[in-house]
């Protein structure tokens, strides 16, 4: 929660002025019973048996009533001002937090991202911040006001009659205990309930993204059952926490009425002793009543605040997550001269978790500027892991990776790596907007001409033509494009960047052979160091160097011809694609 305080800083005046005006308003409210007490005691005069009220001061009664009206007007004005500041702060702060949350999520390392998953991030950005917002809004309006009124009432009571003020103190102390125990008791439950909501979000998202598979397997019923189960769990949790917070109101009511009883008793004794007037008892009773009204509001506030604090904790957890990528300064540089390798791996090993199997083991290679590297190997052999280390998407477990002679862990390298490496990931993704906007992701200042050049290399000219030009709409997630169309556009996006290093991670899998061949041919004309990951020897056979990976280890390194001669694994792969037996494969 503490993590969230800095976001209030720009609204520091708002968050001070809001409650302040609220206090002013409250002050007038506190004065109301006093005025009524005066009205009764002084205005009505003295009661004389048989003669009614003598020495009644009608002017005084009218004056006091007008004073009440004046207090009403002032109270209203102050309340509106307070309301404004509170709303400003609540919406402003939560907008800031939402924005910061999104920024933070975007900067998470791939590792943390793999671990967290999309759904929980979504609920945090939306639901949790919403709860925080309404909590802050209410808190600014009431959190100071209620204690103020309560203590104000106690102090006023003390002014009215110091002798009976202990009844107030007892009541307030008992109330404080109740309110805070309920708050402490419900907070963890609200947090739990938000986690249950995460599970519900997951179900919903999953069934939307996987709708075809769900329907193909006629899993609708089962998925509904899973959702229903999670829904029931959430509902049960909410009922429990609801029941707990439902205790607050009746309990405060009982306590305050108990206080009133005590007050009546003590008041009666003191009146009997001539220490107190009847008007004062009325004033004291009204003050006690005010405490009750205020506390009922406060109890409702507690629910919102407990929810907000629980959500705030979930938000804070993300905000305190450090991007877990490690960077260093002043790391050793290698080779300045022209012929130095542009991309180099030195004894690189990789594990995704400390206890897990190595995804890469002791990989070393050096690739000159402008050269092409082919990476080939079986499913799960570590190809994607290898290329993900070049732009430093994951921390390297052991060994060093150099790009342009500099260690990728070097702090000053991070911007370079993001800006000058073009990646075409395995899973083609486009984003809502236009084709042009998607391509400009590569380089924001690219001209149309440059975009068309990139499209040409990526064999995507016809896709653009088919959709009606660069300004054609791309729907959320690129839904209105087929797999192959998306793939070609994602390739164009990377090429548009004119990258120093272009990484194609098995990104022509949805392309037909003719298109793929044309693409590979066009790529040769690019002025970039190219890394091609593929399952097919055909895609890498022209590379200057080919790495053959098996189970995370390099089992072959060399050109197509060399490997065909010396590398058994490569031969097997090659044969699987070039013998007649291969042609019998039906899929």
């Amino acid at each position, binding site marked *: 929660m503490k993590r969230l305080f800095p976001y209030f800083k720009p609204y520091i005046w708002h968050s001070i002025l809001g409650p302040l005006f609220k206090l002013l308003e409250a002050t007038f409210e506190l004065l109301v019973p006093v005025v009524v007490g005066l009205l009764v005691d002084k205005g*009505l005069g003295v009661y004389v048996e048989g003669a009614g009220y003598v020495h009644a001061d009608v002017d005084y*009664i009218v004056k006091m*009533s007008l004073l009440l009206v004046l207090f009403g007007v002032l*109270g*209203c004005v102050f*309340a509106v001002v307070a*309301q404004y500041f509170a709303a*400003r702060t609540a*919406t402003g702060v939560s907008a800031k937090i939402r*924005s910061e949350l*999104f920024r933070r999520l*975007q900067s998470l390392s791939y590792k943390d*991202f*793999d671990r967290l998953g*999309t759904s929980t991030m*979504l609920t945090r950005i939306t639901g949790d911040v*919403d709860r925080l*917002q309404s909590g802050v809004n209410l808190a600014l309006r009431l959190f100071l006001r209620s204690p103020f009124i309560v203590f104000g009432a106690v102090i006023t009571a003390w002014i009215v009659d110091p002798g009976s003020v202990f009844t107030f103190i007892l009541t307030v102390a008992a109330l404080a205990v109740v309110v805070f125990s309920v708050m402490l008791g419900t907070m963890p439950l609200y947090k739990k309930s938000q986690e249950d909501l995460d599970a519900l979000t997951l*179900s919903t*998202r999953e*069934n939307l993204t996987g709708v*075809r*598979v769900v*329907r*193909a397997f006629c*899993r609708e019923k089962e998925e509904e059952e899973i959702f229903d189960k999670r829904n029931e769990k959430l*509902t049960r949790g909410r*009922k429990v926490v*609801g*029941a707990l917070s*439902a205790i607050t109101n009746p309990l405060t*009511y*009982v306590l305050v*009425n*108990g206080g009133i*009883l005590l007050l009546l008793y003590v008041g*009666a*004794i003191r*009146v*009997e002793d*001539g220490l107190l*007037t009847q008007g004062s008892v009325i004033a004291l009773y009204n003050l006690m009543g005010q405490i009750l009204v205020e506390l009922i509001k406060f109890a409702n506030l507690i629910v919102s605040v407990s929810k907000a604090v629980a959500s705030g904790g979930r938000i804070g957890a993300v905000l305190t997550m450090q991007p877990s990528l490690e960077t260093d300064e002043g790391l050793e540089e290698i080779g300045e001269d022209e012929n130095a390798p542009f991309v180099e791996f030195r004894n690189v090993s990789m594990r995704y978790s400390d*206890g897990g199997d190595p995804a890469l083991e002791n990989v070393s290679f050096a690739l000159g500027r402008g050269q092409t590297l082919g990476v080939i190997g079986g499913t*799960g052999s570590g190809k994607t892991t290898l290329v993900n280390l070049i732009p430093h998407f994951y921390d390297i477990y052991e060994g060093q990776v150099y790009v342009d002679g500099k260690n990728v862990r070097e702090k000053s390298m991070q911007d370079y790596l993001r800006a000058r490496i073009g990646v075409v990931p395995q899973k083609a993704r486009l984003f*809502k907007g236009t084709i042009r906007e998607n391509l400009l992701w*590569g380089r924001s200042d690219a001209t149309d001409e440059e975009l068309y050049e990139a499209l040409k290399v990526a064999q995507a000219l016809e896709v653009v033509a088919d959709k009606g030009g660069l300004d054609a*709409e791309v*729907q959320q*997630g690129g*839904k209105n494009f087929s*797999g*192959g169309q998306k793939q070609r556009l994602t390739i164009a996006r990377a090429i548009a960047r004119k990258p120093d290093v272009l990484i194609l991670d098995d990104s022509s*899998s949805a392309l037909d*052979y003719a298109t793929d*061949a044309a693409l590979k041919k066009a790529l040769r004309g690019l002025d970039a160091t190219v890394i091609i990951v593929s*399952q097919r020897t055909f895609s890498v056979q022209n590379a200057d160097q080919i790495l053959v990976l098996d189970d995370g280890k390099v089992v072959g390194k060399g050109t197509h011809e060399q490997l065909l001669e010396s590398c058994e694994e490569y031969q097997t792969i090659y044969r*699987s694609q070039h013998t007649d037996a*291969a042609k019998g494969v*039906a*899929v």
Partner: protein
Amino acid sequence: MRTDRPVKPEPQKGTLSRILKYTFRYPWAMSLSLLLSAVSVFFSLLVPILIGEGIDCIVESGILWSELTKIMTLIGGCTLLSALAQFLQSLCNNHVSVGVVRDLRKEAFHKISRLPLSYLDRRGHGDTVSRIISDADHFSDGLLMGFTQIFTGVLTIAGTVVFMLLTRWQIGLIVIFVSPLSLLLARFIATRTSRFFHAQAATRGEQTAFAEERISGLKVLRAFGQEEESQAKFDEINGRLEKAAMNATFYSSLVNPSTRFFNNLVYAAVALLGGLAVVGGGFTPGGLTKLLSYASQYMKPFNEISGVITELKGAIACAERIFALLDETEEPSDEGAEELQDVAGRVAFEDVSFSYLPEKPLIQHLSLSVEQGKRVAIVGKTGSGKTTMINLLMRFYDVSAGQVCVESKDVRAVSRSSLRESFGMVLQETWLKSGTVRENIKLGREDATDEEMIAAAKAAHAHSFIRRMEKGYDTVLSEDGGNLSEGQKQLLCIARIMLTKPPMLILDEATSSIDTCTELKIADAFAKLMEGRTSFIVAHRLSTIESADLILVMEKGQVVEQGKHEQLLAKGGAYAALYNGQFA
């Protein structure tokens, strides 16, 4: 496929009565809640009377102790009863509001499985998620507040009216007629804020949709260093949301001070008139206290109700978004439709026409028939409509004209589940659910034994990598498969099919991310699986489809050539061009 559909006008009155209908599903809790609130209000109204009488006992000239003790006992009793009733009522209200939201969510989720794919394909998932998750939550909060306070509010008002009239009817009348004016004021403000609430809910949905897209594509976004661009767009929506939220929050919060101001006026009037009445005789200070306390008690529910009205507006705006989802046209029900039985695998397209958009015809007058056990390969350039054929076969979409038949039955005449169960489908876009590897493989046949599952995994050559995972088959896969490679995900999807062994197969680039060696190894298993099963294979690797019994060559949604490999090659047309292109 376009998203800009006209926005439906959403009538609010209907929404309110619909919400009520949902609450009436809990008749016991509802009536109990009403009863309990009557009890709690009754006793809580008695308390100020008793206190007033108690105060009248405390006179300077002498305390009426015996009277006072009796009254104090009564106060204690009433307090306890009222508190108990209040507590039980809260439980009932909570029960109903939590229950209603559960029901709504359930219906909304179940709705998803009955919506046509054309709807789901067109929509951002985030917006739908926002409806089922956030909107439902906001609705729940509003509903709970609404219940608790409107019930007691109305009853308190009614009760106080009676007591006030009994205490001093002249002054009572003033309070009774003036105070409700504050409701008019509240209504005036609420009507004007209602559009802010709509704007807030809609912008929230938009933001969720945007965040969903960006977060699920975060890796790409990072690779392209687009954090700033995303942030800018997010902040733009966020700015609008902030404004909408500010408007909704501030304007709705005006209600409270303005109604309270009104009440203060009434309070002052009561003090004045009451004071004068005491002076004039026939009225006691205790009576005045009672009256003043009633006045504030009478006004309090108006305050609360007016507060609740704005809260409810927000809740209704959210409910409308859920109802809009529930109201979407569903796929025609196939209840009572014939179950497809004894599928041998005869499939025919009869004069089929289809298009996603009416103005962009795709498939036109396509006819073809496939004999049992044949292997049909669909080839063509990317985007030529191969996947559309699968959409029609699986009945994800319905044809615009003509018919698709399985076993000479129009697929629209049989139940969807029996049709889909007779196909085994592996798509290029893999989809794994979060859960264990075991659950994922057994997706199509939950009752399969572990031996069968392992056999299927072995056939798909997934067994060895699964075994190497931390907990083998019990390893929990995170959302979207976590850090499994695309190829490994595909192997798992293939294992599913190997386990279900359906009568027909659809393989849409099913091995595109799998290395060719593994592919070769799986090929045997696939060959065995395909034996006697009609299969539809979409592939771009021509080498792998030469042995198909029928090759359909597609171009721009049309089947331009069909036949066997040799025939088509000899023809020297589109197929030959594709085939030769492979080695260019």
